[in-house]
């Protein structure tokens, strides 16, 4: 399913987690912020870093490194929060994703995007829209709606449901 969704030249925002380069469809990105204080929500999984104040609104922030099984994002001068618009269950919500650094905006032809390999990325295949090729490097194009789907984020729930009425 992954490849068919990209049929024309699309712009992507690329960013790094560790040494790997990832990309997001630019239409999903609202803005990029410098790292600020994140208020932790008690009793939630660690990859959900908490909330930030985005000009008066409270926006949740997700640590993509933790989500993808890497170590926790350490704050540095390059650390960014990418504010994305995610469609969850038909509703659009605003979410922040932590990235080690933001690279560039990139045009990719459909021809230079390959389907996601089933193994080898260490990521759930459904998170990946495709693999972009740029010079000699591969760029993992993420499907944010899938990464942030309620099922994925609902990992909070099992811990709770034992107590919830």
């Amino acid at each position: 399913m992954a490849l068919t969704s990209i049929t024309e030249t699309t712009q992507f925002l690329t960013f790094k987690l560790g040494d790997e380069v990832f990309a997001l469809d630019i239409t999903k990105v609202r803005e990029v912020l410098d790292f600020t204080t994140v208020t932790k929500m008690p009793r939630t999984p660690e990859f959900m870093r908490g909330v930030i104040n985005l000009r008066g609104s409270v926006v949740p922030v997700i640590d993509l490194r933790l989500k993808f099984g890497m170590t926790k994002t350490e704050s540095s001068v390059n650390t960014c929060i990418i504010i994305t618009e995610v469609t969850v269950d038909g509703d659009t919500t605003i979410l922040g994703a932590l990235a080690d650094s933001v690279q560039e905006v990139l045009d990719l032809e459909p021809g230079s995007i390959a389907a996601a390999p089933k193994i080898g990325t260490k990521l759930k295949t459904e998170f990946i829209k495709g693999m972009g090729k740029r010079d000699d490097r591969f760029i993992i194009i993420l499907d944010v709606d899938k990464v942030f789907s309620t099922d994925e984020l609902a990992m909070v729930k099992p811990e709770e449901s034992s107590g919830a009425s």
Partner: protein
Amino acid sequence: MNDENETFDLDVLREMFRSEAYDLLSELESALLALEASPGDKEIISRVFRALHTIKGSGGACGFEAIAHFAHEVESVYDAIRNDKMAVTREIINLTLAARDQIAALFDEAYKKMPAESEVTQQIIDRFKSVLPEGVAPKVKKPAEAVSAAEEPQETYRIRFRPARNIFLTGTDPQLLLDELRTFGTCRVVAQLDDIPSLEKLDPELCYIYWDVILTTSRGLNAIKDVFIFVQDTCELSIEPIDIEGVLSEEHGYKKLGEILVERGDLSPVDIQEIMSKQKRIGEILVENGLVNNDRVEAALTEQQHVRDLRKNRQKSEEITSIRVQSEKLDKLVDLVGELVTVQARLTQVATEGTSALLMSISEEVERLTAELRDNTMSIRMLPIGTIFNTFKRVVRDVSQNLGKSVDLVLRCADTELDKSVIEKLHDPLVHIIRNCIDHGIEMPDERVARNKPRKGTILLSSAQTGSQVHIRIEDDGAGMDLDAIRRKAVEKGMIPKDAEPSERELIALVMLPGFSTASKVTDVSGRGVGMDVVKQAIEALRGTIEITSRRGEGTAITMTLPLTLAIIDGFLTRIGDDHFVFPLSLVDECVELNAAQSEKMGDRDLLNVRGEIVPYIKLRHRFGIQGERPAIEQVVIAKVNDFRVGFVVDHVVGGHQTVIKNLGKMYKGVDGVSGATILGNGSVALILDVPKLIQTVEREESWS
């Protein structure tokens, strides 16, 4: 005006009429219920008539022909009642209530695109026709059909009609109104021209003329008022009976001459006052002539004053001077005030950190103004809770009739005010509770008599405000809850272990869990297993709490405690490590210190001795898994929920904080213990604690471990 413009205007008109329409419907409903209680009351009959008439008129003007036509048919019946042609019966009230619902359905069809069943309209009309006595055909009432003069007393009225200057712009022709008056009987119209300006200043689109009309008619005051019903809000209208057989003439008679003269401009008000002061009052003359004694005159005057006050009050309650504002605009205003409060918190912080005394004083001024603005804005959104209490009369009436029970609904303190959004969300839970009360609580009349209770059951709906919280209490004098049955059911459903010994409070709390219903048979009214849990969720979504107390055989009381508003609360800011947490101030009882020695004394248990009272506490640092060193002296914020005091251990107490509540959104919806977030003066985010939920979760976890 071209066609396009006209349809546009009609749409705008309809939209403007929308909220008015629903107001009129609820006014009609409450008038009908009042009429049922006192069927002979003329004043209430005309309330019903007025509501119907306005629905007809305004509905017609907005292009809802079907509604106008239907309302007209119903109105004819009340016209007959008003003219003593027929009496109010229960059947008529039932029919009219059904008609009201049908009109509501027709409006829904127009506004919300929900199809209404058109045949119902005809059925209701047919049934109305069948109850109408002979000779009172619900046909278009022609002025010529007016009751012949011989039967009815003739009354003379002085009418001064001064239309709003811009009356022509609303499409009304005053001439037509006057023509309609002329059909009522002998009528003299005098146009008053003294307001007309000189030609160069005259705007031909404005109406400068006003009219004095002397009308002798047998149609009565109401008929005259009806002529002006659509302009009465904008025009200056006085209708005064000047010659009526009956009580009124005396009350108004003595100042007749003076008024006429002043009006005709023969005398100035000052002159007449001078003359009047020389003239003796009729009472004094009577006393002097020995016709009546002084006391009697006093008594009569008191009565007169009383009637006047009464009328004035009635008028006051009927015409609340108000303007209609779209609720979205209000919501926006509240949002803006919320942002202002946040900015003000930042300003205060900057001012406190700086050294400028000038900045400090400005900041204090802004703080004061913001608080005032906040309170005012909030109060705009406040509605008396009576606005929904009244709709329950209908619910009680319908449900109890359905079940063959006899129930009175008593309302107390219905003027407690609550945020509009809270009130709207309260409607469904309250309806549910009231249905439950009638279905499960109140026994059948015979059963009640057998138990030495009055035949008629009572449901008492009351409200009260304490601080920033509102309590709503629903009490019935029914059978109360059967604790044994609840216990059996809970064991059966595996909600509690067989050998458990739950307390009364715990048992009752079970009723509010999903899937619990003890009614042995599922009725139309309640008992489908969805019920109190939905109510509880709804109340908790409003940051409220709900508590049930019940006595077997005596009745059940359900108390809901709700915050006044959802947008901004007074908070109590505390800190643990680097994180800030806000307690709703309304729940905070007191703060005490917790030093290491003290907590050691109690050993392993999280209990605190506050002036001899044992208070359990929850270590928030531990509960929320916050890293870092505990300070030597911690603070305990003692909160009070449902008369149950629980301490919360935090590092530091910061103090009061105006808290603008921000939604956490989908992602963090289920996080327990946190109900929202707010933004602090320095721009960081603090979490608002959901205290009742926290206590509940800890309670449950401990009882299970």
